[in-house]
C-alpha cells in the first residue's frame, strides 16, 4: 500500500516536470532557430509564457490534483480497511458466526453496515426459522412415526384378527355345512316320523274300533248279567217260598208228633209219620240251603261278572278317552313333525345360504386381510419415511447448529454465554463443576459437559443423571483424560472457532449424539480452554 502511494506521488510530479522540460527544450530550440533581432523577444516571451504556464499548471492543475490524490489515498486507505472489516465479517459469516459478523458492523460505512446487518439478520432469521422448522418437522415426524408405528402395529393386529376371523368364518361355514346336512337329515327323519305318525294314527283308529267293539260286547255281557241277576232274585224268592213251606211243614210235623205223643200208644205210628214228615221238611230245608248256597255263589259270580263288565266298560271308556287324547296327541305330534320337517328344511336352506354367504365373507376377509397387510406394509414404509424425515430434520438441525445466531436455540451462542461464566470461575475447579452442573440443569438434552485445557486434558466434567442414570462412566469420561486427538479439539485449536462433530454413538447412553466444542477465552480474547458438550439426539427437539 505504501509503495503504491509513493508511485502515485511521483506520477503527480511527472506532469509539471514534463512541462518544464518542454518549456526548456522549446526555449533552446527557439534560441537555435530564431534570428537575432527577434531572438530576445521570442525567448523571453516564450519563457514568460512557459513560466506562466508552469505556474498556472501548478496552481490550477497540479495542486488540486495533488490534493485529490491525497484524498484518494485517504479514501483508498479507508476502503482497504473497510474491505478488511467486510472480509472479516464475511469470513465470520462463512463460518456461520453471525453474531461475530454483526459485531464488526460499526466499522463499516453506514449503508454497508445496515446492508450487512440486514443480511445477517435475515440469514439469522432464516436459520432460526429453519431451526424451528426442523424441530417442528422432527416433532411432526416423530408424531407421524409414532402414529404410523401404532397404526402399523394395529394393522398387524388387525390383519391377525382378520386372519382369525377368516379362520372362524371358515369354521362357521364348515359348521353351517354340517348344520345344513344335519338339518336335511332331520327333515328326512321328521318326514319319516310323519309317515310313521300317519301309520300310528291309522293303527290307533283300528285299535279304537276294536276297543269300541269290546265295549259294546261288554255292555251286552253286562245286560245278560243283569238279566241273570233278575232271574237269580226270582229264584231266591222261590227258595224263600220253599223254605217257608218247609218250615211250616216242620212245625206241622212237630205238632203232629206232639199230638201223637199225647195219644200214647195209639199215636206211635202217627208219630213215626210225623217224624218222617219233619225229616222231609228238614231235608227240603237243607236242599234249599244248598241251592241257596249255590245260588249265592252263582249270584256272586254274576255280580263279579257285572263288576268286571262295568270295570271293563269303564276301562274301555277310559281307553277310548285315552285314545281320543292319544289321537289328539298324535295329531299334534304329526303337526309338530310337519313343522319340524319344514323348519329343518328352512334351516337347511338358510344354513346353505349362510355357508355361501360365509364363503363370500371368507373371500372378502381374505381380500381385507391382504389390504390390511398392504396397509401395514405401507405404514411400515411410512414409518421408515418418518424416520428418514426425522433424520433429515436432525441433519437440518445439525446444519443450523453450525451457525451461531442470537437465539437460545443456537447452541454455540448459548454455550458462548456459559463460557463467560466459566471464565469468571477459571482456576476454581469446584466452581467450574458447579457451572457445568447448572449448564446440564438448564439444558436437559445434554448428556455430558466438560472443560478441557489448551493441552486437551479434561479439567472438569458433569454428567446428566436423568439421561445417564446410574451407569458407570466410561474411561474416556474422567478428569485428566486427554482429548487432544478428538476432531472437535483439533478443529477448535486450528481456527479458534466453535466445532460441531458428526453424529456418533454415545459411550454413556448408547444413544446417538454429537459434540459441540467452543473456546473459552480470557478477558483479552485469548483462548484458555475448551467447553465441550455432548448433545443427546433422542432429546434434541428440546433444544
Amino acid at each position, binding site marked *: 500500500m505504501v509503495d503504491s502511494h509513493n508511485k502515485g506521488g511521483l506520477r503527480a510530479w511527472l506532469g509539471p516536470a514534463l512541462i518544464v522540460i518542454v518549456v526548456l527544450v522549446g526555449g533552446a530550440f527557439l534560441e537555435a532557430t530564431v534570428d537575432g533581432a527577434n531572438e530576445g523577444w521570442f525567448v523571453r516571451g516564450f519563457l514568460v509564457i512557459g513560466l506562466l504556464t508552469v505556474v498556472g499548471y501548478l496552481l490550477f492543475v497540479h495542486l488540486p490534483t495533488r490534493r485529490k490524490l491525497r484524498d484518494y489515498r485517504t479514501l483508498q486507505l479507508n476502503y482497504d480497511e473497510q474491505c478488511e472489516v467486510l472480509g472479516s465479517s464475511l469470513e465470520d459469516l462463512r463460518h456461520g458466526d453471525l453474531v461475530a459478523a454483526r459485531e464488526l458492523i460499526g466499522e463499516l460505512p453506514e449503508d454497508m453496515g445496515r446492508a450487512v446487518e440486514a443480511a445477517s439478520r435475515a440469514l439469522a432469521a432464516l436459520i432460526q426459522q429453519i431451526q424451528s422448522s426442523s424441530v417442528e418437522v422432527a416433532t411432526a415426524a416423530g408424531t407421524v412415526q409414532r402414529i404410523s408405528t401404532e397404526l402399523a402395529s394395529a394393522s398387524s393386529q388387525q390383519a391377525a384378527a382378520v386372519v382369525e376371523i377368516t379362520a372362524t368364518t371358515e369354521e362357521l361355514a364348515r359348521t353351517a355345512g354340517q348344520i345344513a346336512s344335519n338339518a336335511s337329515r332331520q327333515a328326512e327323519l321328521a318326514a319319516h316320523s310323519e309317515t310313521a305318525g300317519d301309520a300310528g294314527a291309522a293303527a290307533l283308529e283300528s285299535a279304537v274300533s276294536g276297543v269300541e267293539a269290546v265295549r259294546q260286547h261288554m255292555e251286552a255281557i253286562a245286560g245278560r248279567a243283569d238279566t241273570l241277576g233278575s232271574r237269580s232274585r226270582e229264584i231266591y224268592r222261590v227258595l224263600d217260598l220253599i223254605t217257608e213251606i218247609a218250615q*211250616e211243614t216242620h212245625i206241622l210235623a*212237630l205238632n203232629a*208228633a*206232639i199230638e201223637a*205223643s199225647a195219644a200214647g200208644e195209639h199215636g206211635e205210628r202217627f208219630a*213215626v209219620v*210225623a217224624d218222617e214228615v219233619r225229616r222231609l221238611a228238614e231235608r227240603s230245608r237243607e236242599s234249599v240251603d244248598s241251592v241257596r248256597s249255590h245260588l249265592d255263589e252263582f249270584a256272586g259270580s254274576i255280580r263279579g261278572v257285572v263288576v268286571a263288565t262295568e270295570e271293563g266298560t269303564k276301562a274301555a271308556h277310559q281307553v277310548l278317552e285315552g285314545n281320543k287324547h292319544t289321537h289328539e296327541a298324535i295329531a299334534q305330534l304329526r303337526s309338530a313333525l310337519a313343522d319340524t320337517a319344514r323348519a329343518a328344511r328352512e334351516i337347511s336352506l338358510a344354513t346353505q345360504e349362510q355357508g355361501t354367504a360365509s364363503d363370500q365373507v371368507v373371500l372378502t376377509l381374505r381380500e381385507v386381510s391382504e389390504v390390511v397387510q398392504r396397509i401395514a406394509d405401507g405404514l411400515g414404509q411410512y414409518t421408515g419415511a418418518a424416520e428418514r424425515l426425522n433424520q433429515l430434520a436432525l441433519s437440518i438441525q445439525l446444519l443450523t447448529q453450525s451457525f451461531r445466531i442470537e437465539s437460545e436455540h443456537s447452541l454455540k451462542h448459548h454455550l458462548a454465554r456459559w463460557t463467560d461464566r466459566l471464565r469468571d470461575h477459571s482456576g476454581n475447579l469446584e466452581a467450574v463443576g458447579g457451572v457445568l452442573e447448572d449448564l446440564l440443569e438448564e439444558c436437559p438434552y445434554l448428556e455430558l459437559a466438560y472443560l478441557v485445557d489448551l493441552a486437551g486434558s479434561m479439567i472438569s466434567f458433569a454428567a446428566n443423571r436423568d439421561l445417564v442414570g446410574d451407569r458407570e462412566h466410561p474411561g474416556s469420561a474422567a478428569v485428566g483424560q486427554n482429548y487432544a486427538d478428538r476432531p472437535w479439539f483439533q478443529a477448535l485449536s486450528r481456527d479458534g472457532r466453535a466445532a460441531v462433530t458428526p453424529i456418533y454413538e454415545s459411550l454413556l447412553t448408547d444413544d446417538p449424539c454429537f459434540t459441540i466444542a467452543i473456546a473459552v477465552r480470557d478477558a483479552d480474547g485469548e483462548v484458555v480452554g475448551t467447553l465441550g458438550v455432548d448433545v443427546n439426539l433422542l432429546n434434541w427437539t428440546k433444544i
Partner: protein
Amino acid sequence: MKQEIIRNEGHGRFLLVRTGNLSCALPASDVLRVVRRLRCHAVPGSRSRLVGLAQYGGDPLPVLDLQVLVEHGVSNTRHHSTVILGRGRKRGHTVLGLAVDEVVRVVNLPLGDVADSDTDFVGETVYFEGEEVKVLNTQQLLQEERADKGR
C-alpha cells in the same frame, strides 16, 4: 231210618228246643202246640222274662223268654218259634208260651242219666247224641203261672 219209640220205664218223650246256646228238653206232655212267629205285644213294666202277650185261641197268652228263664240273663234270641205249654185242652186251663229260637223235634230221653240239677225249673241235665240237654220242669212253671193268675 231209626224210629224213636216212647217208653214208660226210664224214658220220656220230650220236645227238644234250642235258644241261644242252650238245648232244652220240654216234656211233650206239657206241650200243646208249636207255632211260628207268634205276634207278641210287649207289656210295659213287666219282668224281663216276659216277652209280651199274644193272642192264642181267643185268649191272651203270656209268652216267656226261655233263655232268661234258664240262665237268668239277657235274652239275645230271635224267637222264631213259640212253644205253647199247658195241661188239658179245656178252656180255662193254664197255658203259657215259651219263645225259643228253634224247635228241633220230639225225642226220647233217658231220665235216669242225670248230670246236674240247677234249680227247680231246670231239672235234670242229660246228654243226647253227645250234646248237653237241660230237662225243664214245666209243671212248676205252669203252677207258678197259675198262682200268678190266682193272685
